[in-house]
């Protein structure tokens, strides 16, 4: 199963917006290395969600939004991180919420804008607070590299982007797969 970086889709407005959440858990092994204690420098362990994986979470959220627009027939590839700004660490016991909105969409690709918010379960009174913005560009692979024959590159015919991991996530979130 593909490494999924969102736990549940909570809202999908086709071609417009998708909202997903990710619970940050100390059970996730990578948090034990990011950042591990370094006794030689007197540093205690500091488990925080790596920013690169927050980017991946937004990419998966926005990627599903883009893929859903054409019934997951297009191979949607993250092509460019236009802008990324994360201002606060996500520690275990918090929930990340990704809101991706469609900015541009056409045959060759799409651009999305994204807001990252954090919910601290120790401070529920604060609600979700914005901790970042991530804007992305996606390419429709068949229209840019393969099927249209522009580069002559060979890619698999089947849609290897939206595999079982995504289907399981959508099914568990009550989202119909076209």
């Amino acid at each position, binding site marked *: 199963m593909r490494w999924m970086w969102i736990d549940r889709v909570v809202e999908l407005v086709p071609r417009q917006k998708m909202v997903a959440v990710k619970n940050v858990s100390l059970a996730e092994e990578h948090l034990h290395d990011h950042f591990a204690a370094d006794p030689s420098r007197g540093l205690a362990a500091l488990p925080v969600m790596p920013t690169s994986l927050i980017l991946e979470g937004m990419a998966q959220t926005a990627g599903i939004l883009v893929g859903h627009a054409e019934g997951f027939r297009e191979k949607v590839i993250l092509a*460019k991180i*236009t802008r990324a700004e994360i201002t606060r660490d996500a520690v275990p016991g918090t929930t990340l919420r990704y809101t991706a909105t469609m900015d*541009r969409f056409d*045959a060759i690709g799409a*651009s999305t804008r994204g807001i990252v918010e954090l919910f601290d379960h120790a401070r529920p009174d604060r609600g979700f607070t914005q901790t970042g913005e991530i804007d992305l*560009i996606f*390419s429709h692979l068949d229209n840019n590299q393969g099927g249209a024959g*522009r*580069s002559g590159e060979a890619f698999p015919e089947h849609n290897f982007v939206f595999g079982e991991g995504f289907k399981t996530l959508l099914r568990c979130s009550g989202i119909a797969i076209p």
Partner: protein
Amino acid sequence: MTRDEIFGKVRDVLVNALGVDDDDVTPTASLVGDLGAESIDFLDINFQLERAFGVKIAQGELFPEGVTQDPRFVKDGLVTPEGLAALKTRLPHVDFSTFEKDPQISKVAKIFTVDTLVNFVEAKVNAKQPA
């Protein structure tokens, strides 16, 4: 909209899309050679120009598609006269005067300069709102 106003907006788009300084965006700067644009940046630039100027840019309208992969238009690493004619027809906003003296296919990306984008947008905006 004046050409200077168009240039200003195009410069902002390129600063955003390519992460370059304002001063680097001169009219003759090549998008690939001078400003470091890569292929996917062209999609970004396309989208950002649409947003900045409120126009719709069709696939292949601003940057060419298919011409450089067509065996009729490229031979032995050079763009053929037929290929050059096709490019000129499809890209009226591009100045080919330098490229046609040495039409190596490897240099085709360098024909896109900041002025190229300004020419393109000027034509689009004028077509949308005739003076």
